[in-house]
């Protein structure tokens, strides 16, 4: 029916699951790594968590091009602002600039973003900037196509003032749950933790992620299925 070349020429979109949570002392940002062009996975190991300044990062979803260009503009504005101010920009200012660009170009852009970081005045903060260019400061937020499957999960599991370890584990679990259900999310889980001591990036390859009910175990050879154990039931 349609030409097989349609997919290759479709705009790159990050189906995506992106998450930002605050914890006691900072923030954890998490994302999957799938960039799709229609049904073709253009990049199975993309990095959707981009740096804006030393202390502020942004999770990108939606159109890959739009979110990359927007991040580039905001990084440029923040760089100038930091020089003028003489000290690191605050997360609030970074989020505001992202919102300005997003709102003023709402007719042309199609990207949902999560800005997260740490500054000495407010500590760890997360800001959600969905499609239209709203700005909302939240203790946690989720975005991207995979986030639809996580609303109920977060309703149950979220609590204020987690430790860094609890927050990171929560983010990894949530992204892997979304990857299991959302066809447009997949690959590896990347997290970025930001606090007063700086930034640390973590990487969780697909085979280290827990399996959720009815998924096949990752394996190297089909012959392994002869000696494989049955999958564990889902545990909360």
């Amino acid at each position, binding site marked *: 029916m349609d030409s097989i070349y349609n997919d290759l020429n479709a705009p790159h979109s990050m189906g995506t699951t992106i998450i930002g949570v605050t914890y006691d002392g900072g923030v954890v940002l998490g994302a999957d790594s799938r960039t799709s062009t229609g049904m073709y996975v253009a990049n199975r190991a993309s990095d959707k968590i981009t740096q804006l300044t030393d202390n502020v990062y942004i999770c990108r979803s939606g159109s890959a091009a739009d979110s990359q260009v927007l991040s580039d503009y905001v990084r440029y504005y923040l760089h100038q602002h930091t020089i003028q101010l003489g000290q690191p920009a605050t997360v609030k200012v970074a*989020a*505001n*600039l992202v919102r300005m660009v997003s709102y003023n170009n709402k007719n042309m852009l199609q990207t949902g973003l999560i800005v997260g970081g740490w500054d000495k005045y407010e500590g760890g903060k997360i800001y959600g900037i969905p499609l239209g260019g709203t700005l909302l400061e939240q203790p946690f937020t989720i975005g991207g196509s995979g986030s639809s499957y996580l609303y109920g999960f977060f309703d149950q599991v979220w609590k204020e003032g987690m430790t860094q370890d609890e927050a990171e584990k929560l983010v990894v679990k949530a992204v892997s749950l979304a990857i299991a259900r959302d066809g447009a999310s997949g690959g590896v889980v990347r997290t970025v933790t930001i606090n007063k001591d700086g930034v640390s990036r973590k990487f969780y390859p697909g085979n280290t992620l827990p399996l959720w009910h009815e998924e096949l175990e990752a394996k190297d050879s089909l012959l392994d299925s002869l000696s494989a154990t049955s999958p564990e039931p889902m545990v909360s």
Partner: protein
Amino acid sequence: MSSIGTGYDLSVTTFSPDGRVFQIEYAAKAVDNSGTVVAIKCKDGIVMGVEKLIASKMLLPGSNRRIHSVHHNSGMAVAGLAADGRQIVTRAKSEATNYERVYGEAIPVKELAERVASYVHLCTLYWWLRPFGCGVIVGGYDRDGPQLYMIEPSGISYRYFGAAIGKGRQGAKTEIEKLKLSEMTCRQGVIEVARIIYGVHDEAKDKAFELELSWVCDESNRQHEKVPENLLEEAKVAAKAALEEMDAD
């Protein structure tokens, strides 16, 4: 009086052989001839006071304000040509709202002072503009604490603990230096500023004056506002009493 330019003072875009720009120096003279402005940084905020010389008995008290609020947490006291001062205040207000619109937070005092200084300096660069004939003291309270900046007609801006411009600045600066500002609250600072202004006011040369006081401190919830009526009265009474004490000696 002072040296005359003899030909090098006709334009702000001309240097003299000894490296001075006379037009800017003449602009500073306009500031020196105006009523005194005193400002101090106390441990919990900023106090600014102006000796507003009354030109005519027909003027309504409280009119011709010399201290203006630029943003909710910062204010400006002006000395020199009043109309020039109004222009600078308008520009400062505009910079403050513009910053907030773009960056989503109140303009830091340092940034405000730099932008205003930059604007004042701009008018010293072109022959078809004249320098501003006024000096401005910017006092504000942002997340880095209370800060005080003074901007001269040349466009220079420095940060101060205490600053004075106008007629009685020499006397005022001497008095400010005697104060222990780091231990003083704004409530006490208000009394001191009033005392200093009454002290440097020259009864012989200038007849009447009106005292204008403003503050931005913890007590005012970090908002820049006129000092409350009762405190203002208290300050005036104390200042007059201090003056009589001096005279009695």
